[in-house]
């Protein structure tokens, strides 16, 4: 732990965490430039940078800024939002499995989306349905788990229960849809960044501008202390329940906005915080490194998804699923204990 002091303020930071975060930023930027330059019409990295800076030809400008940039920005934001929500959750429930996927919020968002699909709604309505479903599930899980406070373990169990109910409902909705609609729903459920435009970016960007400071500045230090145990945190003057509610609300909103933009992309929320902890070797929730790492993961995953199968674009959720599963298997096979259990 180092402290940077000026006359007016001081900032505490960990050198290793800072290095990791900067490395993630650089990686994310590199992945972004490569993605912007790749596709049917290739543009060398130098040209991409020049175009982004406002130069370049008119054609390059159209392709990079109008066609490809929204997709990459969506990937960066969705990855960051999911990873940040995941880090907050895992810290909150003191369990590396405490991701939004496990707690049923993604399942709830999927239910909302599927209801719209079966009813034959538009893409915009689908995103709205996902939002409403995710938030409603979040509120429901919290209310069900509440008994003189919300305990981390009971929250997970409640999430699993609710998740299972909703997956039954989702399966039923899938059988009720027309085949075409089912295919559309399947694509959405897997998580895809295909054809994302600026209209998908704006709501998520606004949400992140509001929510990231809430989580990082408002709850970060409190979460750090709550990890030592509720009683210790209370003794140190932290209102545990209030922090929990705030963190949970912010994380549910982040997850829902991310799902509305790209569908419930699996595993980023679960793996990014775990990887970040290994990189920074810092205690606590590692919120900022997790977020940056999530952005890197999703951008790289999308790059792979676009070029893995020649002639076909896979949805990004398939790649994160395979990578996430592979990572977990490696984690176990390497015989390491999976973090805080």
């Amino acid at each position, binding site marked *: 732990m180092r402290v940077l002091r000026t006359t007016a303020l001081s900032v505490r930071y960990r050198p290793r965490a800072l290095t990791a975060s900067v490395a993630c930023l650089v990686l994310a930027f590199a992945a972004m430039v490569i993605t912007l330059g790749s596709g049917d019409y290739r543009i060398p990295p130098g040209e991409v940078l020049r175009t982004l800076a406002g130069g370049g030809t008119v054609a390059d400008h159209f392709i990079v800024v109008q066609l490809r940039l929204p997709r990459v920005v969506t990937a960066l934001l969705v990855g960051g939002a999911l990873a940040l929500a995941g880090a907050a959750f895992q810290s909150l429930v003191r369990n590396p499995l405490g991701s939004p996927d496990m707690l049923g919020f993604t399942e709830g968002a999927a239910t909302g989306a599927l209801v719209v699909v079966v009813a034959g709604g538009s893409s915009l309505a689908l995103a709205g349905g996902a939002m409403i479903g995710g938030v409603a599930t979040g509120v429901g899980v919290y209310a*069900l788990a509440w008994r003189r406070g919300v305990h981390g373990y009971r929250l997970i169990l409640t999430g699993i229960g609710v998740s299972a109910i909703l997956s*039954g409902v989702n*399966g039923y909705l899938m059988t009720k849809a027309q085949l075409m609609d089912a295919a559309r729903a399947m694509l959405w459920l897997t998580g895809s960044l295909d054809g994302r435009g600026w209209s998908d970016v704006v709501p998520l960007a606004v949400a992140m501008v509001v929510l990231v400071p809430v989580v990082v500045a408002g709850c970060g230090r409190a979460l750090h202390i709550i990890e030592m145990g509720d009683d210790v945190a209370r003794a140190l003057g932290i209102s545990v329940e209030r922090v929990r509610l705030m963190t949970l609300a912010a994380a549910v909103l982040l997850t829902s906005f991310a799902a509305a933009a790209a569908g419930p992309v699996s595993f980023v929320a679960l793996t990014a915080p775990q990887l970040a902890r290994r990189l920074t070797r810092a205690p606590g929730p590692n919120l900022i490194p997790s977020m940056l790492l999530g952005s890197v993961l999703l951008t790289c995953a999308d790059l792979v998804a676009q070029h893995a199968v020649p002639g076909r674009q896979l949805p990004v959720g398939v790649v994160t699923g395979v990578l996430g599963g592979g990572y977990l298997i490696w984690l176990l096979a390497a015989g390491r204990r999976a973090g805080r259990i």
Partner: protein
Amino acid sequence: MSATAPPQTPETISATPRARPPGAVRLSRGAGLIVAAGLLLAVAVLSICLGAKSLSLADVWHGLSDPGSASYTVVHQMRLPRTLLGLLVGLALGLAGAVMQALTRNPLADPGLLGINAGASAAVVTSIWLFGIGTFDGYIWFALGGAAIATTAGYLVGGGRSATPVRLALAGAALNATLFSYVSVAMLLDSASLEAMRFWTVGSLANATPSTVVRVLPFVAVGLVLALGLARPLNALALGEDSARALGSRPTAVRAVAIVAVTLLCGAATAACGPIVFVGLMVPHVVRTITGPDLRWLLPYCAVLAPVVLLGADVLGRILARPGEIQVGVVTSVVGGPVFLYFLRRAKAVRA
């Protein structure tokens, strides 16, 4: 999930003991089992009688015995196979859940945990996508193979002999993620897979034919015998590795047999009607409040009461959505979920 928690009564979801109301009859565990069997018979009769076209008991009797009667085809080709399959699948899931919970000392263990469902799903989608197999009888062998491979892999990745509940849960999650990604690729790239899988993954008894029942029966029978034989050794194992050795049991052998039993039971059940959730998770918990943790009672009770739950759910799905039906897997999750949550709320304070 603390590995050090006393395994017999997962304190997460044990109901608080209550004073019995005055006048309540207390049955012995043996008598209770007979009552449970009576329940099962009643539900089975309902399952044969009720459906899109309801049959009276007389109709059913004629349908069973008289090949010339109007209801003969309905009873023999549809209702009876469906009821028998529900019975076998329910029994398999309940037993498998109870054995898994005892084996992994994980109160949340169910067939989804070790990636069994994911393995079966991946194998089934492969059979459709790459081999163009379109019949349920054709899936069975694939699903069984997939379930067996996934269970073994899950167990090995989860640490084999040194597996802890959390490691097993992680291994299951890892397998689920990887395999379900593959399943979704198939469903996205191949519309035939999508069409078949979206109905299969829900979990339904609607496609039961006499041949399905015949195919599933041997697996479930062997699994049942193995599971019941495991009652005592698993009881000993619940005391902990060292105590079990001291009592003369061989933990490694017990675990291996248990894995085989669970694979046979879940694999056959999943192959026959898709992944059905919650029955394997819930029934052992509810039963434990009746019998206590002794597996010699727990397992037989699960074997009788789990089919009651499954057939009940199936009948409910047929009544609610006449003349169509709601798949049994949907009913078990929508009804089983709240029951699970209710237990959770009644539970004593859970420890992290």
